[in-house]
């Protein structure tokens, strides 16, 4: 044996030993940071300025740092409850009067006044960012005195209170925001410069204060020492950007993170089988559906309502559920199961191939036809859209319809979809605000209705009447009845076939208490504590 070899072997061993020593020194894992709650999440935040933010992750952060006038109960979205204010509604439904609670202060120490709310709302509307559409029905907001806010609408808006829960309507500390370049002037989209300051600091009333947003790395919240409500158990909340679900699960297993936000259905079994972890499984907010173009020159045979109903009856819904896995459910309509006034999954359509074939024959298409199915080729909310499209292709083959798959990159596919040029498409809709009112957009002339070229010109006057009434009706009992009418109608008519509503899976350490899921903010960092 050459001495060269021996020397190499010796230095190799030395190298290996020192490397191991270095890492061993680390592996005393800094354990049970009971003072910090660490959440692993795939970062999707583009802004932490409440007037600009519009993503689920920013929703968690803003829930911890800001408050709104009204809110939902901790674990459901069935009713609106007071947060910073109580309210009354005028009889014509056009004026909402809010009265601020006493003794509220911002994290800066400044008292909360009605002018702060007025400033915040106007700023959000005038910045014309992603969430500004939420203020579309607001004609004016004013503060007759320090504790009263008067909201005037352009038209009765049954969903305005649900919209006000959105962090876009957070009450921000106007003095502090103005100090950093904020403005609520009409040209705020050009003149407001507070965005970058608000990306790294907060000016709210919440139990936490934002101290740092290290983009695509981590976001840190610390306890608001001036908070008037219940002190949260954790002094610090850290959101770590971990884009891969597998990596999130690994970090959860070792305890480096306390909550793994983006777990997928195929990881559920493993998490449930681990005694140091728990899994929350619930229904998500997104509904995947087929769109069938009602314009004959685009949709061809799909413009025939009988063909549309045939397709609705030909889908193998339980098969799609198996494909999606986890806590997915079959929605009874485009309104997600779990929303107020939404039909339960018990009312969902089931496959009836015979009835479908008969309808197809009645439509004169018994020999079938060929159609292209366009869809974005990626996985969203745990649903692999490509695989689901293949399932639709297989299901419709049984009906004699040949479906050609036409996947495209999401940005490219969006163009056709949004301009109403897709004959047959597989897409999804996530709610803009947590209220069934958002789904009126699926009716004729609505945003999604137009994408299927479903307009007043080619739709049933009966459903148009339901739509018009829904747009102004504020009485809760009457709304329930109208939504029931809408959902029943859509199960037999219209250009949409809702396929699946995927579930969400959030893993967390078993020693974490206080987990509560809310469809609006998903999780509230202030509710957690460690046993």
């Amino acid at each position, binding site marked *: 044996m050459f001495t060269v070899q021996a020397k190499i072997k010796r230095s190799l061993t030395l190298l290996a030993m020192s490397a191991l020593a*270095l890492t061993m020194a680390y592996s005393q894992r800094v354990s049970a940071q009971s003072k910090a709650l660490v959440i692993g999440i795939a970062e999707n935040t583009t802004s932490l300025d409440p007037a600009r933010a*519009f993503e689920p992750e920013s929703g968690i952060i803003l829930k911890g740092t800001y408050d709104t006038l009204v809110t939902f109960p901790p674990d459901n979205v069935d009713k609106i409850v007071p947060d910073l204010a109580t309210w009354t509604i005028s009889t014509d439904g056009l004026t909402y009067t809010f009265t601020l609670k006493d003794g509220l202060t911002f994290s800066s120490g400044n008292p909360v006044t009605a002018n702060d709310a007025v400033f915040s709302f106007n700023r959000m509307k005038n910045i*014309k960012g992603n969430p*500004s559409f939420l203020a579309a029905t607001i004609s004016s907001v004013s503060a007759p005195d320090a504790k009263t806010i008067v909201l005037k609408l352009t038209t009765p808006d049954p969903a305005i209170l649900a919209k006000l829960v959105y962090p876009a309507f957070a009450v921000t500390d106007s003095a502090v925001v103005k100090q950093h370049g904020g403005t609520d002037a009409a040209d705020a989209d050009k003149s407001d410069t507070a965005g*970058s300051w608000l990306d790294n600091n907060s000016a709210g009333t919440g139990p936490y204060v934002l101290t740092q947003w290290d983009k695509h790395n981590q976001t840190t919240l610390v306890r608001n020492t001036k908070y008037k409500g219940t002190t949260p158990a954790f002094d610090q909340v850290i959101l770590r950007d971990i884009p891969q679900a597998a*990596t999130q699960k690994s970090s959860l297993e070792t305890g480096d993170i306390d909550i793994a936000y983006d777990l997928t259905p195929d990881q559920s079994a493993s998490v449930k089988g681990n005694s140091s972890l728990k899994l929350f499984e619930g229904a998500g907010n997104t509904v995947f559906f087929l769109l069938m173009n009602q314009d004959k020159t685009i949709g061809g045979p799909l413009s025939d309502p009988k063909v549309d109903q045939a397709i609705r009856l030909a889908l193998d819904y339980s098969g799609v559920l198996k494909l999606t896995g986890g806590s997915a459910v079959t929605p009874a309509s485009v309104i997600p199961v779990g929303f107020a006034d939404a039909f339960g999954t018990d009312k969902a359509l089931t496959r009836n191939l015979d009835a479908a074939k008969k309808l197809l024959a009645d439509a004169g298409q018994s020999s079938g036809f060929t159609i292209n199915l366009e869809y974005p080729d990626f996985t969203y909310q745990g649903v692999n859209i490509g695989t689901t499209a293949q399932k639709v292709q297989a299901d419709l083959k049984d009906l004699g319809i040949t479906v050609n798959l036409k996947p495209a990159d999401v940005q490219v596919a969006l*163009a056709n979809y949004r301009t109403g040029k897709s004959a047959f498409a597989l897409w999804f809709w996530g709610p803009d605000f947590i209220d069934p009112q958002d789904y009126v957009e699926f009716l004729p002339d609505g945003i999604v209705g137009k994408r299927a070229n479903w307009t007043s010109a080619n739709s049933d006057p009966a459903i148009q009447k339901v739509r018009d009434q829904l747009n102004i009706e504020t009485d809760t009992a009457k709304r329930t009845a109208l939504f029931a009418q809408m959902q029943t109608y859509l199960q037999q008519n219209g250009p949409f076939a809702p396929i699946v509503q995927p579930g969400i899976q959030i893993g967390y350490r078993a020693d974490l208490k206080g987990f509560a899921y809310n469809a609006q903010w998903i999780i509230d960092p202030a509710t957690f504590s460690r046993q």
Partner: protein
Amino acid sequence: MSLGFFIIRRLLLTIPLLIGVTLISFVLAHIVPADPITANLGQRAISDPTIVAAFRAQWGLDQPLPAQYAVYLRNLLSGNLGVSIHSRRPVLDDLRAYAPATIELATTATLLGVSLGLLLGVLAAVGRGKLIDSVARFVSLIGLSAPVFWLALIALAVFYVRLRVVPGPGRLDATIKAPPTISGLLILDSLFAGRWDALRNAVGHLILPSLVLGSYSMGTITRITRAGMIDSLAQDYVRTARSKGLRERIVWFRHAFRNALIPVVTVIGLTYGTLLSGAVLTETIFAWPGIGRYAYLASTTLDFPAIMGVSLFLSLIFILINLVVDVLYYLVDPRLRAR
């Protein structure tokens, strides 16, 4: 031609090269049949013409394309790379934030990959035909053929979750405060600040992604070194050296090994450049906030300023690395100098 003249000429050529890069990436980014508004505005916002108009005006997207390019070039000449649409931060700041992470990772990956590769290559050549040769070649085969994302996931599952010998994803633990940023390289910054806890933690976090990322270059370099050494050892000058009575160790390292190094230098240059362009998969799996992920996000959200900024940055890196490699050749190979 003298070395100095050579370097200057190459550096001067860089400028038209980079301008060409901006033109090509501008054209390519705009040929894609999609619109940044679909990528950046929500489903409701996009139906509101006021919001869309405000967005277009804010990002200069309402100007004709040649005008947009002209504005970009003009800003570029004053050192302004524009503002990223998805991070709403100057692209230069974004690059400053993410490039060091990738530089640190790529450098350690290359160092590890190269040293392991050289070691294994030498061992394989020395013990040619014996067990050590087969083992070294097998390890190199894994590095060459195993998909890097698979290696990453397996490495995490084994060394992080099961054995707990390495810290997890990310550059630092959540609860360790980062040292003040001077270079952006955590190892250097921790040293500057005297933060031993951060240094230990940062090195720990670097080990696994570096090994994974360096596995391909390790595989390549093992093979090249082994082949190069075997080749050198068959040369006449080695027989001469032996017959002069030189010890084996000198024969191996002063003569055979050095001559086998020349192709290795090329490979190092190529792989380092490739790694610097950001290994998206490794960075995603290890939650490493680097250029690869930034570039991926920029391209999927049609963030034109970021796309151009990243293209420029990476082109510059490749040009510089190629220059360094050429200079190294010149220095390492006496035959080039003799001309």
